[in-house]
């Protein structure tokens, strides 16, 4: 019941300053953002602007200098099982099989048992990895590895998924394909998603809302509700069929250009 009213992620006046012996760097300045449950939000911005910092803050890996971050109404204080994180590369452990890699999160949380193992097996099959459970990551293609990474994230059943340019290391064709697939899976499972990317078209194709950040120190300079006149929403059809796609692209491109 409170789910409808409580935002999935609530960021209020967050400021982040990094300290080093050489000086201090202001990465984020006065960021406020509300993400609704089941919403798919993308954050775009020039490289090095602090996009990843924002995700690390939401994931509870680091603490903000000032301001507050709340996940489903409670203040973030360290990593939470409600939040799943996908990194820029798959970071599968080469010494673990596909199955063992997919199980690592559950293992860490002490939730690895016969039941969860069977569920992960089903996830692997659902994502087209049947027959590869006992293979090692080196035996898989880039796209397949990224799918294993997705299973690993989904295995712990987080409500909120943070995606830090998870397709950046893939070749273009695989990237479009995986983008489409991951987008579909996350929507089907009703996850709240925050995707960080510097690829404007990826952001438009996948999300309900795109947030544009300025260069460092990053502030929010624009926000776009993406509304494409499509019957069913998919990343590929958004790119290929939606006439609004180009309009959004030009607009965001301009905003990034002005502030870069």
């Amino acid at each position, binding site marked *: 019941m409170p789910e409808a009213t409580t935002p999935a992620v609530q960021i209020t006046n967050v400021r982040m300053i990094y300290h080093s012996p050489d000086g201090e760097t202001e990465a984020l300045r006065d960021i406020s953002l509300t993400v609704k449950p089941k919403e798919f939000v993308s954050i775009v911005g020039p490289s090095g602007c602090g996009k990843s910092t924002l995700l690390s803050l939401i*994931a509870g*890996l680091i603490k903000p200098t000032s301001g507050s971050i709340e996940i489903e109404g409670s203040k973030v204080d*360290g*990593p*939470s*099982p409600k*939040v*799943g*994180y996908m*990194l*820029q*590369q798959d*970071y599968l*452990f*080469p*010494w*673990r099989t596909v199955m063992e890699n997919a199980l*690592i*999160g559950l*293992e*860490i*949380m002490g939730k690895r048992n016969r039941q969860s193992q069977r569920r992960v097996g089903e996830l692997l099959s659902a994502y087209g990895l*049947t*027959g590869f459970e006992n*293979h*090692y990551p*080196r*035996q898989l293609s880039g796209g397949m590895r990224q799918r294993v990474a997705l299973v690993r994230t989904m295995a*712990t059943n987080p409500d909120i998924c943070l995606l830090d340019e998870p397709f950046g290391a893939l070749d273009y064709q695989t990237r479009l394909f995986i983008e489409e697939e991951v987008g579909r899976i996350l929507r089907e499972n009703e996850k709240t998603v925050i995707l960080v990317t510097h690829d404007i078209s990826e952001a438009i194709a996948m999300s309900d809302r795109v947030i544009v950040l300025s260069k460092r120190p990053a502030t929010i300079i624009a926000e776009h509700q993406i509304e494409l006149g499509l019957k069913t929403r998919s990343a590929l059809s958004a790119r290929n069929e939606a006439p609004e796609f180009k309009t959004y692209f030009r607009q965001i491109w301009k905003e990034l250009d002005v502030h870069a």
Partner: protein
Amino acid sequence: MRNPEEITLTQYSQAHLAYLAKVKRYRRLILVARVAVLVAIVFLWELSARLGWVDTFAVSSPSRVMATMYRMAADGSLYYHTWITVWETTIGFTVGTLSGAAVAILLWWSNTLSKIMDPYIVVLNSIPKVALGPLFIVWMGNGMPAIIAMALAIAVIVTIMMVYNGFQNVDSNYLKLMQTFGATKGQMLRKVILPASVPTIISALKVNVGMSLVGAIMGEFLVSKAGLGFLIVYGGQVFKMDLIITGVVVLCIVSAFLYYLVSFLENRLLRWQE
């Protein structure tokens, strides 16, 4: 595309069979050449000794070394001395590697501790460990404990340096990933740092086998009444080149054996790497 193993052809083409035969021929050629080098050295050595080109008093000869070996094998002294050295090396190697790895884990666990200890480890690494020999003898007496201490001292510092470096070179994004699942430091050690460092640990082991053997032989030079190092030094003192070279040859065999033992272990542990 279900299974990479399945797509390999069971019926090879003519060209592939020819390729396989070529690979096999090449491997055989390498093996034959290796043996030939050894045979040539032994043959030339024996020939020059027989023909009086060199003084057998100074360089001995293969047949005399063989005779010495045979005699020592018959009275059991060959096995005795070899066993002593292997035993000292094994203890020094095992204890040195384990304690070195333990120290490396401590240093990884506490960044502050590693910063504090850094200059001491650097100095301990650069000091020739043989200089510590007399200390070990005074502390532990004129015998095997001092020799094992020597082997251990050499192995332990190298292990600390190599293993700790390996730990630090683990991609920090793996740790970040673990952090997002809320992993503890102990979990990171067990599930990431240690398995990721297996290749480094193996190469540390390979270096250590040699290092411990050096330590054991140096120790035997300084104090002992038994072992291959003792044989070699004793041979030198009584001008018996046969004995020295016999000692060296057995040492070669021992070190090759120990090295391959570690290689075997490596193959077992690194199957995922292939």
